[in-house]
């Protein structure tokens, strides 16, 4: 279930190159939206804008409840609108954890007041995310949970994971998994390799992720359940996912913009905005992730938008929390670093940011057709803009792109029939 604040649907027209890879559309069109619904598609002269199905982010930390100084539902969904998203899924690792119907209902109510962009809330797999007891999954599903995850933490016990896989079948929701074997990642702050060795940073080896990916894929396969693997970082994990997909078993995976663009070389700066969990890995890992995204083995781009207060990142590297923001920069960063240099096609990028994640979580795919609710993003691919601390709608500015000039910009977002972003792309 996705929730947004109540309000009227909009009527407007958008004109330009319309590109919907999942539907095979690539044409110059005028899209008329009447009361939030696409009412006509007519041929038009080629304009400067590219219009595509809006984006879906399956991995966002809205920090609400508990850390509203870092992000609120309002600020986080405004950031999503600025990034071209028409739907986002929020993580339950808040204070308190979203592990009961009462916490979830309160969030849903708040989202009806504040959410600019339709938002789904995931609920925890285990009570308090302690990894001991299952949450009341049926009740959580009944009041609108979007999926189950203990994100931020792994489900350490294989026994509990197996039970979660079996029991969650009483709902039609999926498990989204943060794969990390804590006995291998303990005291780890950067990828195990030459950079961590040179800097003396505690190593976080690839196997800390991949042995858990292998375990969970194996358990899911044996239980006949499908799982979603979050923020994949290691080539060994990609190989495990490939193996499962080749056997015909269902599983989906996501990758973040920062794991697609950066490597652990970035950590040499000791900039705390290069510290994330899982960590930035080697060029070989990055290339395996790019390849899996191209092939579709990894079908989703997820930002893992993780706002942190400035004082928490203004500390030495090892003391800083993991995570970076991403909603407002994902498209531009990937367009600049992957599409412009020819590493990824524009069509693939659009598909993996929209239809891919929607399908993985059983959400309605944003489509461009007469009669569909309007979920559209208008892009100015030639616009250049510089990422600055003051330029974010998010309450936090812990971006790995600060100071960078990016090419391509989201100028309009229509989410569930409402115009939620309209800016001059050449400002």
């Amino acid at each position, binding site marked *: 279930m996705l929730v947004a604040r109540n309000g009227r649907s909009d009527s407007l027209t958008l004109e330009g190159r319309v590109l919907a890879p999942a539907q095979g559309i690539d044409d110059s069109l005028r899209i008329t939206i009447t009361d939030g619904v696409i009412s006509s598609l007519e041929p038009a002269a080629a304009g400067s804008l590219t219009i595509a199905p809006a984006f879906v982010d399956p991995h966002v930390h809205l920090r609400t409840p508990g850390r509203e100084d870092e992000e609120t539902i309002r600020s986080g969904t405004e950031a999503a609108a600025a990034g071209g998203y028409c739907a986002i899924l929020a993580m339950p690792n808040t204070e308190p954890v979203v592990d009961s119907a009462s916490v979830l209902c309160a969030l849903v109510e708040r989202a009806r007041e504040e959410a600019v962009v339709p938002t789904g809330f995931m609920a925890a797999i285990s009570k308090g995310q302690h990894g001991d007891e299952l949450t009341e999954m049926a009740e959580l599903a009944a009041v609108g949970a979007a999926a189950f995850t203990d994100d931020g933490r792994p489900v350490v016990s294989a026994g509990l994971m197996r039970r979660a896989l079996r029991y969650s079948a009483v709902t039609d929701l999926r498990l989204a998994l943060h794969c990390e074997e804590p006995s291998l990642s*303990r*005291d780890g702050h950067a990828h*195990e*390799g*030459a*950079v*961590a*060795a*040179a*800097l*003396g*940073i*505690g*190593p976080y*080896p690839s196997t800390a992720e991949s042995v858990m990916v292998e375990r969970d894929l194996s358990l899911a396969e044996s239980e006949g359940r499908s799982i979603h693997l979050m923020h994949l970082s290691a080539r060994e994990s990609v190989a495990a996912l490939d193996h499962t997909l080749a056997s015909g078993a269902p599983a989906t995976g996501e990758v973040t913009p920062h794991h697609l663009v950066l490597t652990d070389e970035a950590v040499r700066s*000791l900039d705390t905005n290069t510290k994330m969990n899982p960590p930035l890995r080697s060029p070989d890992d990055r290339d395996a992730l790019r390849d899996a995204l191209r092939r579709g083995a990894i079908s989703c781009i997820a930002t893992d938008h993780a706002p942190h207060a400035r*004082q928490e990142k*203004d*500390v*030495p*590297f*090892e*003391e800083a929390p993991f995570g970076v923001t991403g909603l407002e920069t994902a498209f531009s960063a990937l367009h600049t670093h992957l599409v412009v240099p020819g590493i990824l096609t524009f069509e693939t990028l659009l598909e993996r940011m929209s239809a891919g994640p929607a399908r993985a979580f059983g959400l309605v795919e944003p489509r461009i057709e007469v009669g569909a609710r309007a979920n559209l993003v208008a892009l100015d691919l030639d616009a250049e803009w510089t990422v600055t601390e003051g330029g974010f709608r998010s309450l936090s500015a812990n971006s790995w792109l600060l100071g960078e000039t990016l090419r391509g910009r989201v100028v309009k977002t229509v989410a569930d029939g409402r115009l939620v972003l309209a800016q001059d792309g050449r400002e």
Partner: protein
Amino acid sequence: MAELRLPAPPRRHLLSIADLERADVERVLDTAQSLAASLDREVKKLPTLRGRTVVNLFYESSTRTLASFELAAKRLSADTMSLRSAGSSVDKGESLKDTALTLSAYEPDVIVVRHPSIGAPQLVAQLTDAHVVNAGDGKHQHPTQALLDLYTMREALGRLQGLQVAVVGDVLHSRVARSLVQALGLVGARTVLVGPPTLVPRGIEALGCEVSYDIETIADADVVYVLRMQHERMADAFVPSLREYTTLYGITPERVRDGQVVMHPGPMNRGVEIDPRVADSEAALVTDQVRSGLVVRMAVLYDLVAVGSVGSDPRGLSPAVSLEVA
């Protein structure tokens, strides 16, 4: 035509050996040598840094490094102030950033930082106008230790180029090892790291050294550099027991060949990584290292403050200014 104004050169710091070039290392060692000569006199004080302020900011326990920086600054006639985290506002939860800003308000010329976290001196350097010297940050770097070790080797063996150095023990937790490998690489010496596989991090060879798990490897070395087994940094048991470590890697008289010198950054665990008979032998340069520490740290302070103040090349490649001797 408007007067041509050159921008002020960026502040020089000593944060990591990785920031230095060979010429920087050699200049500091040569300066240390001149200072040692001048200290062989009855009045052991030079006026070089009179009116300058050196602040020592120590977030980790230290005896020799703190003492040596304090004395080095005093021998150069600087005003010194030492702050330890215990008993300061750090105890009250003040962040490193605020402590650095507070101290900077006194306009010190140099801030010497020791901190348990990697990159803490870099953070201070971003916040202050003072020159920052890294006196050890987590497992990352301890550049003045590496410089004083090079100085000690050069004094004892007469050269650095072509030396073979075996660094033995707990490399994983050692900022000394990381700095030393890089510094030895700069001056044309070769390093092999010797230790149990669980205490040698994967990927360390990229620093420009070899790795061996076999203690016999040290036979080829001119210098056997023994690392301290860092119990205090070990949350996990990286080796089954200290007894087994000592059996496999302890530096005993039987393992030291004639003509080799043995070094240790201190404090030593006698009977663990180094046999007391070796520690007390002629081959051991441990007290020479402590003496070198004083002159090398004087040279570092001099190099940053006195050389830096005459508008030298920001990378510190200008020829050393001759020392003013009282």
